């Protein structure tokens, strides 16, 4: 590992922390334009987080220490996840600590802690949200794992940077199987990040909420960390998508030039701009599903992933 690899690692985590709220801001802006509304500023998520950090935290009288611990665990998991995902370079010193399966485990840890915290205060909506989040989670997790399995079969590795590098450096080969799993991945991304059609990030109608219902009791710095963590989660998912399906542009190889590393930052920015507008488009043209249609939605994702796997095993491509 050269110092450049450590530099890549460092820049990558910082970039994730800084760009995640910006990415959410960009999606909100696109969505507002598509819906003929006047758009909020790109920096609006930052302002929200900053405002929350300044406020006094209000805790429910019966909240346990678990409730206060959870935002830090969730945030910490998301930062570590950002360190594993090859968004700028594929030779990350930290990536040996956790492969793609451990990455999925990291997301699961965050989800479990968030759900436990939601049940901690003991209000009706909190446990409702926890139950629904775990429902979406247990359906989405196998689908995500199948997507990763297919990519790791192609690259004969479960390490995400190795997969990404394998896909990026080989001569442009078309994998029909990846097309199927690409669809599956987008469906999982929508469900896992509380986007329409499974959940609505902008809703404040208690009966339809999943993600927001879990955060009802949080305020101030805890809420800020939770909001930042969910922005990071969306950013991480987008970067997993790039690593699997658009792996070009990241710094690869044992000794990448500093120039490639520098060039990879605007390339990542362009990818995020494109992904954000596509997400906003999907969210604008689709309607929110009833909660019990969510299993069908995610079963579709799972079947697409399995189909991709079968296509790969049948055709070898």
């Amino acid at each position, binding site marked *: 590992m050269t110092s450049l690899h450590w530099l890549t690692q460092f820049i990558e985590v910082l970039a994730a922390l800084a760009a995640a709220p910006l990415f959410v801001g960009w999606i909100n802006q696109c969505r507002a334009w598509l819906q003929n509304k006047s758009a909020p500023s790109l920096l609006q998520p930052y302002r929200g987080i900053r405002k929350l950090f300044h406020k006094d935290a209000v805790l429910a009288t*019966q909240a346990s220490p678990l409730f206060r611990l959870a935002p830090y665990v969730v945030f910490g998991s998301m930062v570590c996840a950002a360190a594993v995902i090859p968004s700028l370079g594929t030779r990350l010193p930290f990536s040996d600590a956790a492969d793609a399966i451990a990455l999925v485990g990291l997301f699961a840890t965050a989800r479990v802690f968030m759900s436990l915290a939601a049940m901690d205060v003991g209000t009706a909506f909190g446990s409702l949200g926890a139950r*629904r989040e775990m429902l979406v989670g247990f359906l989405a997790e196998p689908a995500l794992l199948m997507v990763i399995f297919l990519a790791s079969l192609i690259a004969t590795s479960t390490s995400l940077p190795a997969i990404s590098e394998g896909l990026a450096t080989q001569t442009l080969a078309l994998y029909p199987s990846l097309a199927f799993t690409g669809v599956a991945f987008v469906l999982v991304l929508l469900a896992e990040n509380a986007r329409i059609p499974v959940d609505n990030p902008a809703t404040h109608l208690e009966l339809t909420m999943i993600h927001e219902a879990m955060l009802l009791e949080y305020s101030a710095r805890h809420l800020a960390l939770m909001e930042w963590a969910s922005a990071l989660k969306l950013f991480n998912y987008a970067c997993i998508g790039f690593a699997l399906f658009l792996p070009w542009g990241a710094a690869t190889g044992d000794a990448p030039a500093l120039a490639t590393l520098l060039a990879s930052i605007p390339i990542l920015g362009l990818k995020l701009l494109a992904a954000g507008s596509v997400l906003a488009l999907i969210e604008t043209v689709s309607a929110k599903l009833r909660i019990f249609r969510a299993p069908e939605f995610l079963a579709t994702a799972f079947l697409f992933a399995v189909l991709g796997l079968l296509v790969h095993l049948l055709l070898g491509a």
Partner: protein
Amino acid sequence: MRRVLFPLGALAGLCLAAAAVISIALPAEKLVLPIGLPDLPIHLRRDALSSVFLFLLGAASAGISIFGAGYFRAGEGTAPGLLCLQYHLFLASMGFVLLADDAYGFMVSWEMMALSSYFLVTTQHRIPEIRSAGFLYLLIAHLGAIAILLSFGVMQGGSWQFTFDAMRSATLAPTWAAVAFSLALFGFGAKAGLVPLHVWLPEAHPAAPSPVSALLSGVMLKTALYGMLRVTFDLLGAPTWWWGLIPIALGLFTAIYGVVFAAAQTDMKRLLAFSSIENIGILFTGVGLAIVFLGVGMTTLSALALIAVLYHAINHAFMKSLLFLGTGSVLHATGERNLGRLGGLIHRMPWVAWLTLIGALAIAGLPPLNGFVSEWLLLQAFLSAHEVPRSFVNMLLPLGAAVIALAAALAAYVMVKFFGVIFLGQPREAGLAKAHDAGWLERVGLLWLAAGCVALGLMPTQVIALLALIPEQLGIVEAMPTASSWWHLVPVSGRAAAYAPLVFLIAIVATIIITVGLVSLLYHRRSRRSAPWDCGFARLDARMQDTAEGFGQPIRHIFLQFFDMQRELPTPFDRAPHYRVVVGDRFWSSIYLRLAKWVQRVAEAVAWLQQGRIATYLLYSFITLIVLLALVL
């Protein structure tokens, strides 16, 4: 007295565990005990496979015994002295099962294990439900034992020598080998709780006192796994590859079935019992995978699958014992097993709550705890299954990874329900305010098991280095590829996959500490307490929290076909609305009740023979004698 005997038992367990770890690398040792029937001494043998399970037995029972010292007290049911005897007899017989080197010694200790555990399960024998649960357990245990006995009978291969050495050297025709394997799978599957032979498990585990449930689930189920491994990889020698497909199919189905039922339970010990069924499914899937790999000559992967199985067995012993003991403390503190009457105990019993949380997170398969490591290894083995040179099978096997992933994700759902409903939220009953935390002996037991979960999760390389000796000693593989460094887990090849839990944990903890530090440095740490937000409805109370039934409702909805469900729903006009849902097991009504009816019918038909007159019975003897003479002459 129990304050002395149980800690002594725990000490013996610790010594056993230490001896097992030291002896694992040694070559096999043998001993012939001159007890038993004349000319039929008991053979004992300790090899690496025995050592692993002896470690499991010793280490898990050390925690359970020290907990038991604080837990068991005089009351209803069996007297404490007798209970202590039964408990240690149970432990000793499990040890002998793991050491036996002939069918005779194995079956005797196997039966001792079944009987002593039967008496432990029926400790509260004045309650009719517990008596019938114990009877069901005894019945299925004996059906299994008969199958195991028959399997040994097939494996001696005409030599009529019942030592395991004779079975190792016997050569069986492929058909007979398959028969022996199926009988062993039935027998050990019945003991382990493989679907459809699982019905005793959710009845017997809740019936027993909690330390006994912990032993049953954490340790005794693993003796069945030990038997399966011993027969398949040692006594039968070279298994045919397609045998493995049967345990894979049964195991995957068992895993899903167990976890789906666990999600629908409202009794905390039944929930854990179904979760044990899930884990047994995962274990048998791994066994099947190891057989398939070995049969087609992919020895390294076979060893990997076997290591995953052994690792998961040890992990499950720690996690499940921890959870069962946690429910025991809750049961003592509140007198409630029903999830719907618990809640908010993290404030009253912080020790039990936080230690149980470790167990719950571990069994949910979350990194960096131990449950994740073994599932990760199993998934790595599954990911290579597409290289099996058998068409169709190589396409179906990777889908098994999807089922394992689904089971693991559902296990997280179950554990959020388990922990959230018992320990979080507000107390659902007024009596819970009087709940007290566990005593110091109980805490030590819980702490030991929780520390085991953490240590097994953080040091996989060291554990695997020891476990790798088993496939080597069984002759499956020459030598496992060794790890590159002590903190870095690399199962097969360098850049293919890696996992370093210690780095992982340090990274997360460091991030958390930095975040806490930065937030308080840049902003402030002020906070105040207030009532929770009630959405404008001012009379929010503890009864409005989600119940255990409510938390399981999405699962009942999605996996409707699994359940035999009876529901009584209120109409909008009911003055006294009444809601009742009973979730039953389809296997119970479709197999067991029919079988029972059929047995009853046959018994009634045979009862015609019983005329009740001496002369008739003498006539029967006479006819039998004539027939036998006619056959012989």
